[in-house]
């Protein structure tokens, strides 16, 4: 699979994505991690909502440089561990009309159900690939809650070009993480000559 333009107007495009697909994202998305997820659900955030509809939330605490003219540049931008947002993510997706989440390590059943219900995907970025991913960020459009949350936790509206991600949870209830875990467990039991762990 080649490029996916975001935001995505048509839900069918997202429904077509399957676990195992490699996708390159081009367009506009938003970052958010722990503080942002909690804040987004405290009450509807009208000013941020238009920047979330139809696009992806990137779970990332970037390193950001401020230029003398006041603009920002992403210096390093790898994904953070997703499972911490498990209590919030399905609700954030469905309330704000997100079409996807980008992070690392995969998420749980509640999020998987949310992906199916609201037509979204979980995209896995390569953990630690801070430079490649920062390089795909072509522009920082604006930022929300910078003062209150600080640089890593703020919500950054960014433009990306050919941002590489892997679909590891889709909108049809499939999760690569579950499959790999089950298969490696079977292999472990075989290597150790155990019945069932």
């Amino acid at each position, binding site marked *: 699979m080649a490029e996916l333009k975001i935001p995505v107007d048509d839900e069918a495009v997202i429904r077509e994505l399957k676990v195992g697909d490699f996708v390159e994202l081009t367009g506009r998305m938003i970052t958010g991690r722990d503080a942002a997820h909690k804040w987004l659900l405290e009450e509807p955030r009208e000013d941020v909502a238009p920047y979330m509809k139809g696009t992806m939330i990137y779970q990332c605490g970037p*390193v950001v440089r401020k230029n003398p003219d006041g603009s920002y540049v992403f210096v390093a931008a790898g994904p953070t561990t997703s499972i911490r947002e498990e209590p919030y993510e399905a609700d954030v997706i469905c309330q704000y009309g997100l079409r996807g989440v980008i992070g690392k390590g995969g998420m749980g059943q509640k999020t998987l159900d949310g992906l199916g219900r609201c037509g979204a995907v979980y995209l896995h970025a390569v*953990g630690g690939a801070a430079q490649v991913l920062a390089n795909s960020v072509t522009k920082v459009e604006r930022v929300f809650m910078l003062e209150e949350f600080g640089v890593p936790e703020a919500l950054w509206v960014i433009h990306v070009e050919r941002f590489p991600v892997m679909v590891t949870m889709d909108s049809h209830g499939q999760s690569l993480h579950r499959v790999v875990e089950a298969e490696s467990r079977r292999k472990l039991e075989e290597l150790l000559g155990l019945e069932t762990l």
Partner: protein
Amino acid sequence: MVDPDRLTETFLEMIRRASTELPADVVEALDKGREAERRDSLAEKALVTILDNVDLARQKVAPICQDTGTPVMWIHHPIGVSTRVLEKAMVDAVRQATARQFLRPNAVDTLTGKNTGVGTGRGIPFLHFEEWDSPDIEVRMILKGGGSENVGAQYKLPDNALGAGRDLEGVRRVLLDAVFQAQGKGCSPGTLGVCIGGDRVSGYEESKRQLLRPLPDVNPVPELAELEARVLKEGNELGVGPMGFGGRTTLLGVKVGVLDRLPACYFVTISYLCWAGRRAGVRIGEGGDVTWLS
């Protein structure tokens, strides 16, 4: 007499190398992994991205990963060189490296949750001093990332569920379990640093020290060399793959050390080093001449 400012400058350069230049043997192992994966698989894509990232970091002189981890350092010094002078020079170097963005401010006050902002804090960096007979000062270090630190583990043998007794077969069993438990969460493919024996403190220290060994290094103890090779092979057979996407490259290396133990205890301690296995070192001669180690 060593000049503290020169020391700080040299240590800063060592940290820059660690954070921005991945050692050649690690790059080679990642590249071999890429070749072993199926064409167009997610595993292959992940390794290609990782290798591109390593190149880019070197070119831009920027951190390979934004989590620059804990600097863990082993310092050998001659008789008569003050460890307090060395410690101060190293702490200054870590602060300067942080100010120059070779390191991220990575020390958080555990009680208040506030970042110290300077890259150093209580217990950070972690320094281990040893006096030796040589007139040189030698430092070897790793940057140990948080995601990989979270998947480290300490097993207590016997472990009935795993059928692991107090012998090398038992060690093999818990090591494979640790690789399974980690899945891709420590940013696989990774390297296992292992200590058999010791106590709960010394075990972790030795397991990290094992991570200083270059990947091609063969254990001088034949049984351990065999164990390392076997767990490397079988760990990869688990099929967890890069980032846990499934695939053939789960481990880059297994390095095992041994400490003596109490009769009542048999610990197996594992430190998992992520693909960003950032290692560096330096040797400073009596006359101040500097040799870079990797």
